[in-house]
């Protein structure tokens, strides 16, 4: 029996069409691969950049935060401490940035071909994940170097990884849809991410934050995701179920909100982009 397609105006109800999205999973893979290959193919260092960036970042952060500012690192060697934070932060920042521009960077696809538009922000996660794999390998080398053996809680790192992705996609769905309408967003987001970096304990320990400002830091979901990475992989800091639930809840809430907004305006993308 041939499939029946009915085209109608939006009736205001939001349907997720997950089955259709699933049918396009190969497309997500191909687009993600295209983004990754396109980034590294013509570059002289190629994938080397994925190594150079975290290494340099760790070097500079260790110097500025550790030596110049003299901040503490929860009793862990500064490079190891910072790299662990950078791994998580880069995943989040790259994913959010790429998701934001995912629609406008593929204008010709949006205006010429039909597929569930969710494919684009999802495929844009490829680059962040690719960098993550490289960064994790460097982290593993550094852990061996400093003699840190991951404990039994190490697998929980996957939870925080997922939280970082869900958070980035959630915000990214909102910003990408907004970006299709207002191209200003493309310029605002990198700036916004940079500001967010400073108020997140990526390159300094949470214990450096004055206690009266702690609450503000605690409300930042990225604080717990970064702390979670360090807690699960390096075994530092404390992590109670409340923090876990908080992180998951905030990430999911933003994700659902972003998804709603994206779906709400999805049918207009081809007209306004």
């Amino acid at each position, binding site marked *: 029996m*041939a*499939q*029946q*397609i*009915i*085209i*109608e*105006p*939006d009736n*205001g109800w939001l349907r997720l069409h997950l089955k259709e999205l699933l049918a396009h999973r*190969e*497309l997500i893979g*191909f*687009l993600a*691969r*295209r983004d990754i*290959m*396109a980034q590294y*193919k*013509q570059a002289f260092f190629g994938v080397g950049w994925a190594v150079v960036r975290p290494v340099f970042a760790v070097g500079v952060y260790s110097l500025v935060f550790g030596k110049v500012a003299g901040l503490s690192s929860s009793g862990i060697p500064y490079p190891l401490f910072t790299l662990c934070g950078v791994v998580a932060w880069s995943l989040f920042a790259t994913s959010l940035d790429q998701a934001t521009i995912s629609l406008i960077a*593929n204008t*010709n*696809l*949006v*205006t*010429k*071909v*039909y*597929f569930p538009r969710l494919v684009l922000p999802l495929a844009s996660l490829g680059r962040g994940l690719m960098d993550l794999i490289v960064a994790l390998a460097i982290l593993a080398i550094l852990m061996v170097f400093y003699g840190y053996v991951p404990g039994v809680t190490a697998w929980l790192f996957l939870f925080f990884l997922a939280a970082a992705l869900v958070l980035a996609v959630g915000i990214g769905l909102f910003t990408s849809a907004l970006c299709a*309408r*207002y*191209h*200003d967003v493309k310029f605002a987001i990198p700036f916004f991410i940079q500001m967010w970096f400073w108020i997140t304990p990526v390159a300094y320990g949470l214990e450096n934050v004055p206690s009266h400002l702690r609450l503000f830091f605690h409300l930042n979901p990225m604080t717990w995701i970064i702390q979670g990475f360090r807690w699960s992989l390096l075994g530092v800091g404390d992590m109670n179920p409340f923090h876990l639930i908080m992180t998951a809840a905030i990430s999911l809430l933003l994700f659902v909100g972003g998804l709603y907004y994206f779906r*709400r*305006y999805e*049918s*207009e993308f*081809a*007209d*306004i982009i």
Partner: protein
Amino acid sequence: MKHKPAVRVENLGKRYRLGLLHGRQHSIRDNLSGILKRVARGALNDKHSGPRSKTDELSMPAGDSIWALKDISLTIDEGEIFGIIGANGAGKSTLLKILARITKPTEGRAMMSGRVGSLLEVGTGFHPEMTGRENIFLNGSILGMRKREIARNLDQIVSFAELERFIDTPVKRYSSGMYVRLAFAVAAHMEPEILLVDEVLAVGDLAFQKKCIGKMQTVAGQGRTVVFVSHQMFAVRTLCDRVAWLDRGQIVELGPTFEVVKHYEENSLQALNDSAPVVIRSDEEIQKRTFYLQRLEMYDQIGNPVNVFSHGDRMSWVVEVGGTCKFDTYSLEFRIHKETGEYVATGVSCLMHDMYFSCHTRRVRIDLGPLTMTNGRYSVSLRLRTEMTIADSWEPAGVFHIIECNPFALRREIKTPVCVIDHRFSSADP
């Protein structure tokens, strides 16, 4: 045999905000100022003031929006090649985009039974850094093919594109011809039940266009449905069974290809001011003269005033003179030029036929044909002779068009000559 409808469109309409049609309006500032203005005018009632949605659009005053499509209803049968024609901005591409689900209609609905493949552009999503092979998979996947399906057809795609040697070269090193061949090869191997095609014939060389047409005929031959938007009437005539002619978002005529295309072409020619079948000269042009040409009428064989003819038709002109003649007789001369500049034909009543008209004769009839000229726009110039002098010359007096010249309409690879002489080929062997 009962026809099963493959596509059914009911009262489809699409409204665009005017701002959307004119360039990139999207900065937050613009929209904010728009909202502020509306607040100032009190036009914004207590609804939400966020980015406008579809419902806002409907409540907007008509001046801010335009119906790109309105009340479109049609049915396309399975296995049919259906053409959509019309001038730029008639709504052809909007209709196709709605059927392709790229954009949503504002009202009405469309139903389609079967997998839909759309070819609105060849090579969508190609990445220059990636090899031909990698792009086949990417592009195929974008067009809705499964990986397995692409892998199975890979060899065919590559040989169809004639790119065996370059398949692992980044496509940025391809010539534009190779690029288009590869892109079309991928598209040609998707196997939808309904194929939507937009203007893709406009790109690529003639060989590519032929391949494209051939492929569409094959698709339809297998009982699948093709919806084809084009400006190129030769392609529409060759391919389509039925055609819908759109103008300003509405269907003007829907029916068999030959009729609709003919009407469409006549109409678009009439839209040109210079091509009325009856031309009356303006007063300023003739006020300096005492004896002058004042009117030209063109008729077809059965006496209808027309200036659009098919190859092989006959036509008649009636030339009217005005003013007073100082001599007893006058004679007429005509010349026909093709718009491309060729001097095609002439006729001089005195010199060629030894024919003079008495000055009491006000209207002279000239019969021409059969017209051996090929497709194009032809201008007529007239001269009025008395004794040995030229009393008046009127050029161009009128314009006529030849629109149906089949051998050249269909075979674009032949360079079109000015005329076609009746001929036949046969073996001269004993």
